[in-house]
């Protein structure tokens, strides 16, 4: 579904991503794990077209292959590649409803079903529809950020550290919901520092270290690998 080859991102002289290759197959949950500053967010921003990059990104939707070079971010959203950005980035002064509707900004069709779907996954959002989203708790904001992305009917969802700053119980809840979204046919690329949880729900994983892929393979194998244990799972 997504094939990335030789992806490079530079900020001036800093080479944040140094030519990485990976792929995500349709229906999968793939996780990209790595320490702070490894280049995870840079990779996702490059996939969404939010920052310039070199290398090739190919997206295949319903048998149609799209080369994403030069395609604007809004058109990528239209193709079905949608990101839930790091740190939630909800539109703080707008209501929960407006945030959700903005997720569907590019769509012209009926949104009732999609709203219902979001409320089914996140009943708490329904109670807070008219509330200013900056008044939501961190966990609720994460739910809103995911709900907002779902409103655009993504085919592949890029999630950037959805567990950041959440209590363990809520982390489990969010991961359960990610699995539910995946079960409904949305392919997932999950960026995480919480390698433990990410490796549990993913089928395959890539480990990013200072801009390069250091390890890759089936998630359960990586979870058992000594290097990963030492570096990311605390022993």
């Amino acid at each position, binding site marked *: 579904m997504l094939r990335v080859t030789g992806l490079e991102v530079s900020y001036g002289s800093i080479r944040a991503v140094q030519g990485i290759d990976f792929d995500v197959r349709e229906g999968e949950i793939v996780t990209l794990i790595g320490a702070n500053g490894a280049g995870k967010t840079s990779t996702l921003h490059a996939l969404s077209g939010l920052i310039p990059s070199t290398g090739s990104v190919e997206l295949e939707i319903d048998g149609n292959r799209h080369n994403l070079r030069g395609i604007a*971010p809004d058109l990528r959203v239209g193709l079905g590649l*949608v990101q839930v950005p790091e740190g939630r980035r909800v*539109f*703080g*002064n*707008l209501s929960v409803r407006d945030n959700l509707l*903005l997720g569907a*900004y590019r769509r012209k069709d009926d949104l009732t079903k999609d709203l219902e779907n979001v409320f089914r996954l996140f009943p708490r959002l329904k109670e807070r529809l008219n509330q200013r989203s900056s008044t939501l708790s961190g966990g609720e904001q994460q739910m809103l950020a995911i709900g907002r992305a779902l409103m655009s009917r993504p085919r592949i969802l890029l999630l950037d550290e959805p567990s950041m700053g959440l209590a363990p119980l809520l982390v489990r809840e969010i991961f359960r919901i990610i699995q539910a979204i995946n079960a409904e046919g949305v392919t997932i690329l999950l960026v995480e520092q919480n390698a433990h949880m990410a490796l549990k729900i993913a089928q395959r994983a890539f480990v990013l270290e200072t801009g390069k892929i250091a390890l890759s393979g089936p998630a359960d194998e990586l979870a058992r690998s000594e290097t990963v244990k030492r570096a990311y799972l605390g022993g």
Partner: protein
Amino acid sequence: MKTSTRFWLLASSILVSLAVLTFLVHYRLIDRYLSRLLMLGAIQSIIALSLNLITGFTGQLSLGQAGFVGIGAYTTAIFTTQGWPFPLALIPSVGFAALAGFLVAWPSLRLRGDYLAIMTLGFGEIIRSLIINLGDLTGGASGFKDIPGFHADGDINRSIGFLWIFLSFILVTVLITNLIRSSHGRAILSVREDEIAARAMGVDIRRVKIGAFALSAALAGWGGALQAPFLNYLAPTSYDFLKSVDIVVILVLGGMGSITGTILAAFGLTLLQEWLRFLGDYRMVIYPLLMILMMLFRPQGLMGGREWSLWNLIARLGGKNREVRHG
């Protein structure tokens, strides 16, 4: 109440009040002084609303709004002096201002915050010096004199002028209110809130910013166009940096991103300035004093991004609590 009922109720009550007001002005039941103040307030409202669109709603601080107003005012002055009727002169006035807004928007795409403010400030100064240096066309530093009124006949001029100004004021208010409530409006607000998130949600922020700048400039030009036949005389100092700051002050006092707050502050400051004339030059202290007091006690402005609405009031009295909030 059904939305369509509400709409017709609101539309007809606005039109009836406009007709009544115009009648009162025409037969001098509202005296010349008060009606001029009301017209000044309405023009200020249009101009302040135009700034609210780009600064309050889109989040792009513009310190050159008076430049767009000046383009509208001088264009109307030039064309009506050539014999064009006012409604016809309105078209190039709004058009040129929009074009200028479009041109300013391009470099502004790469700038934000302070840098954008400085660039728009530079634009305003360019317009001011163009007005001064194109003396043959604009009257230069000594001003543009003897601009025709809305109508050659004095009595008709007064009520037609009132009608034009208030009709424009209503149209601009309705336009901005509806825009902000539409999905385009949500896109505009999302750019103010968080550009990265907006882009990630599929908002083409370049298009939003260019569109908002052009529309804001067009509306400012509209406000300026009304000034020409209303004042019959234009001076370049009315379009300098200080005037741009005055418009920002209205916005800050009324509440960034509040339409009703902006209108309240525009009328309020216009009236206040008149009523405090007896203070002489000390009047000049009022704006800054108000600003300081506002920052101390109500930094979000009078309305603080909320809207005052008759329907909400009725709903609240009826025990229901419904609020319109734009930021």
